[in-house]
């Protein structure tokens, strides 16, 4: 009984200590929020709360202009369809290129699939560097070098995707069952053959799931890249927003197109990922 009493005391003190840590954690989060807000507020040209009252001015202007356009508004949406397709094109090609590079990088950086030992840390650092740079920074640099076109955007998104997907793919590799790899080794299969027949069938569903998730992300990234001159729907949006009054209906048409497209891709990819990993809807 004495033993149980001592244990109870120990558990109670442990629980109290955990509660104290939780309280300190919550206080820290509040402190960071308050200091962050006051810091950015002092950096603003105007006061944030004063600006808040005008927050809905621009959106309501857009909505009113779109409403006034009447049925012609739907024609406007169709006008911007080619630009949307260009953005999707950038995202699609970049995801395919980046995904292919990611497979190579992942296979070269996972102990579990017998990658070349000394190369593993090197490839991992390369992937760290590739995903450390946001697409926007790489695109700005490439647009400066190569000029304004979708190609620099494509390269920028593919580069970042290779690093980001490579890391996720290599984590999938580290969790696979090694028995099929060993089985093929014992048959005299080469490394490439082991990857093809023992690794790929195991990782393909998860790879595809991550690939689709990345495609969603890349559609948004490609739209943003239009703002820096990479073409596509982003560039059109920048133009119409820049015009301000009078182009509100066009801005609204682009917003609707972007919203519907991204929502459709999200839903389709979520459905497919759910099917692939076999656990209902993926999130």
């Amino acid at each position, binding site marked *: 009984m004495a033993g149980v009493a001592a244990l109870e005391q120990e558990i109670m003190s442990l629980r109290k200590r955990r509660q104290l840590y939780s309280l300190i954690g919550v206080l820290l989060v509040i402190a960071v929020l308050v200091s962050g807000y006051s810091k950015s507020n002092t950096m603003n040209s105007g006061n944030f709360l004063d600006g808040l009252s005008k927050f809905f001015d621009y959106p309501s202007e857009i909505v009113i202009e779109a409403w006034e356009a009447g049925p012609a508004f739907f024609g406007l949406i169709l006008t911007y369809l080619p630009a949307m397709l260009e953005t999707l094109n950038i995202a699609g090609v970049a995801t395919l290129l980046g995904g292919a590079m990611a497979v190579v990088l992942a296979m070269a950086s996972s102990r579990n699939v017998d990658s070349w030992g000394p190369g593993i840390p090197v490839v991992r650092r390369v992937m760290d560097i590739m995903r450390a740079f946001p697409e926007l920074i790489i695109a700005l640099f490439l647009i400066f070098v190569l000029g304004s076109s979708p190609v620099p955007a494509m390269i920028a998104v593919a580069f970042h995707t290779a690093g980001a997907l490579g890391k996720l793919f290599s984590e999938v590799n580290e969790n696979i069952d090694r028995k099929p790899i060993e*089985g*093929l*080794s014992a*048959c*005299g299969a080469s490394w490439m053959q082991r990857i*093809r*027949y023992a690794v790929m*069938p195991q990782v393909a569903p998860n790879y595809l799931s991550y690939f689709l998730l990345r495609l969603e992300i890349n559609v948004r990234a490609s739209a943003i890249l239009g703002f820096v001159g990479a073409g596509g729907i982003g560039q059109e949006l920048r133009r119409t927003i820049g015009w301000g009054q009078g182009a509100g209906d066009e801005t609204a048409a682009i917003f609707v197109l972007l919203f519907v497209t991204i929502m459709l891709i999200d839903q389709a990819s979520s459905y497919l990922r759910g099917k692939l990993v076999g656990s209902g809807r993926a999130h």
Partner: protein
Amino acid sequence: MIQFDNVTKTFGARTAVNKVSFTIDKPQMIGVIGRSGAGKSTLLRMINRLTPATSGQILFNNMNILALKGAQMRRWQRDCAMVFQQFNLVPRLDVVTNVMLGRLNGHGAFKSLFNVFSADDVTTALNALDRLGIAQEASKRAEELSGGQQQRVAIARALMQDPQMILADEPIASLDPMNAKIVMDSLREIHERDNKVVLCNLHTLDTARAYCDRVIGMRDGDIVFDGVPEALTTDVARDIYGADESFNEAATSTAIETDTSRTTHSAGTVTPAVAVAV
């Protein structure tokens, strides 16, 4: 044929196989018995080069297989097919493809990348499956089969390799008695019909007695017995298993109970007289 010469394998400070020497000079079915950790698996894995030996040499027809590298080593791995306790198939691939993977060695990059196998490969694979009585499962995914069926697929893959010898590492350790009997019968049949060396790690004395022409007993990395099954007396078994007077052979038995006096291996017919205790 194959000769072990002072072969040692150490894992850090632990010696798994200690200066082992023995020779296999004719196609036999050989059982390797001993407790878990006695070095049985390491012994087999060193032959297939899945585990590198620390010292010594293993000669196959005077070729030191421990010195082989690259393509030559992989060619040797194809020649000594391996059957594993956990089957080591690719679960998501269909059965016939799993069997054809035994022919990967020698396939070029293009054929491998695009999963191209010749009509001859398909026929050979189906024949191998038919020989093991599971040709009807050829189009199913490997993961859909029972343990016993998967082990037969693994043996079919070994046959597909057209090997010089078959190494079986505890092939029946995760199977029920009925499937264990089917698998052991298959290995014995391959040995007899194809005249191949079958080196088989076994946990149970009775299985070794029923199916093997020769038994090697290992204890703590050393070979402590090497002889015909008839010489495997209870005293010898006690020595192999490091047990005291209270040792009961039933302790090493799963459920295949055999009457060794009725076991015959001659004249091409396999009648191991196995009574399956359910």
